[in-house]
């Protein structure tokens, strides 16, 4: 079976910018996609040449894995354009040297996966705040949120995203599980919910604000339209 462009794009839409918690396809980081028989070439681009090289590496590596997961794809080549670490990342990727092998001497201690986990935790907190915000706007009280179980939360896209981030962290997503838990899965006590959400709001603001900034910079850099401000 020959892979289609649509199938490859769909796979790429599962790759997120770890900091911005949004798909690289939505962020317009996919600059070019070529599918020829069982070979796929993808070019990625970022808002500035000085975007963090670690996150750049993660996205390139994730994009490669996503493309290779499409049935019929035998070879995937991901090229990162216009970045200060493009030569290292592209060569490292082509030779499958891994992160540490790509930047010998520039990494230490924790693995890149641990960094990714930090941002997954942040994304989780931010998604939870967004969902709780919607529930509060719909008339629920903070006290009610503290007692709410996941099954009691009406279905919505916001809920779906929250559950997916929650699942990624390996936290309980069964219907009876409490809605408001910290990134380690501990329920937040009733008296602490307001403060918990207040701080979570900062995390969400950082992520969403950063995403807005990155969209604006990318738009300027590559002459594409800058989307309207989404943060409410």
């Amino acid at each position, binding site marked *: 079976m020959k892979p289609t462009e649509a199938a490859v794009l769909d796979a790429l839409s599962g790759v997120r910018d770890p900091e911005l918690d949004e798909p690289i396809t939505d962020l317009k980081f996919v600059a070019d996609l070529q599918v020829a028989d069982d070979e796929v070439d993808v070019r990625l681009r970022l808002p500035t040449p000085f975007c963090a090289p670690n996150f750049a590496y993660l996205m390139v590596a994730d994009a490669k894995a996503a493309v290779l997961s499409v049935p019929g794809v035998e070879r995937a080549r991901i090229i990162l354009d216009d970045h200060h670490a493009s030569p290292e990342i592209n060569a490292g990727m082509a030779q499958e040297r891994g992160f540490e092998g790509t930047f010998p001497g520039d990494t230490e201690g924790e693995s890149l996966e641990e960094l990714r986990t930090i941002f997954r935790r942040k994304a989780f907190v931010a998604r939870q705040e967004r969902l709780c915000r919607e529930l509060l706007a719909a008339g629920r009280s903070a006290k009610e949120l503290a007692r709410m179980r996941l099954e009691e939360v009406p279905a919505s896209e916001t809920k779906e995203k929250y559950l997916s981030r929650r699942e990624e962290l390996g936290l309980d997503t069964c219907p009876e599980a409490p809605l408001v838990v910290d990134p380690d899965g501990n329920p937040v006590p009733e008296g602490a919910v307001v*403060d918990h959400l207040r701080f979570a709001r900062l995390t969400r603001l950082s992520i969403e604000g950063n995403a807005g900034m990155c969209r604006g910079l990318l738009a300027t850099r590559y002459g594409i339209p800058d989307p309207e401000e989404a943060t409410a």
Partner: protein
Amino acid sequence: MYEKDGEKYFVVDGHVHFWDGSPENQANIHGKQFIDCFYGYHSALSPEEYLWPEEKFQKYSEEDMMHDLFEIGYVDKAIFQPTYLKDFYVNGFNTTEQDAVLKEKYPDKFILNGSFDPRSGEQGLEYLEELTNRYSLKGVKLYTAEWNGQSKGWSLKDEWAKRHLEKCEELGIKNIHVHKGPTITPLNKDAFDVADVDEAASLFPNLNFIVEHIGLPRLEDFCWIAVQEPNVYAGMAVAMPFMHTRPKYFARIMGELLYWLDEDRILFASDYAIWQPKWLVEKFVDFQIPEEMDEYDQLTPDIKRKVLGLNAARLYDLEVPSEIPQPEAVAAGSEDTYPEAPVR
């Protein structure tokens, strides 16, 4: 000085540059990428009528700067924050010595800050002392993401960084402006991590730590540190221009800063020449947090006066004209119960 609706504002621009990013001064591709990156910020967040052609942006004149800040920009005092980048630029991007040319020519207009690089060890200490003796520095600007040979950055937790901060105390340098920026090794760490400021601020309670760009995009980490360390300040360079392109985001940033810190620890800055103070001052004075964001307090003229100049005047012992109202400082710390540390 700026006046609107009967209110007067003393303006201290807390973060300005007199840089040379021209092709002649670029040492390598990174020099080009760096100024391109700045130009991207400038282009993405400036109102159209304030956009410069790329060539002018790379290297502007003394006349441009004096005009934009002091003739039309309402600025009473501007603080030079050097950014050396000697690995990227032949003569450096914006060194203390380069800024000093203007400071010496217009001593009443500028405050000159120096810098240090702890990786220079003993020599760095000597350089800092020499700079201070020559220019009577009251502040330094630190750029932990600066490349230096094999090193792609440093941390305030480094032993030599502490030695340099001790030296600052000894020399009477009390304002430590820390830029948190991209590219820092080890690469598997968060590039914008502000945690090192926390330790330094606890260790040196007599120094003021102004986190430039308020730790964006790690606002939660910055606020977490600032609520615990009363000597940590919010430097608004880069955050200000969001008023134009993303006003709701800016409103939320201001709302959060006023909640977690207080109105005495927020410092206005343009980051000239990335942005120009004229429109930032005008827009900020007109700015209000939208009423629907009722979880935040509204901005009063007194709050704006503090942010625009009085807070910086306090840090740098500047004389404020008597016609400017000087509201009392609020008690430090607006809140003291915090549920949990930021997500790490």
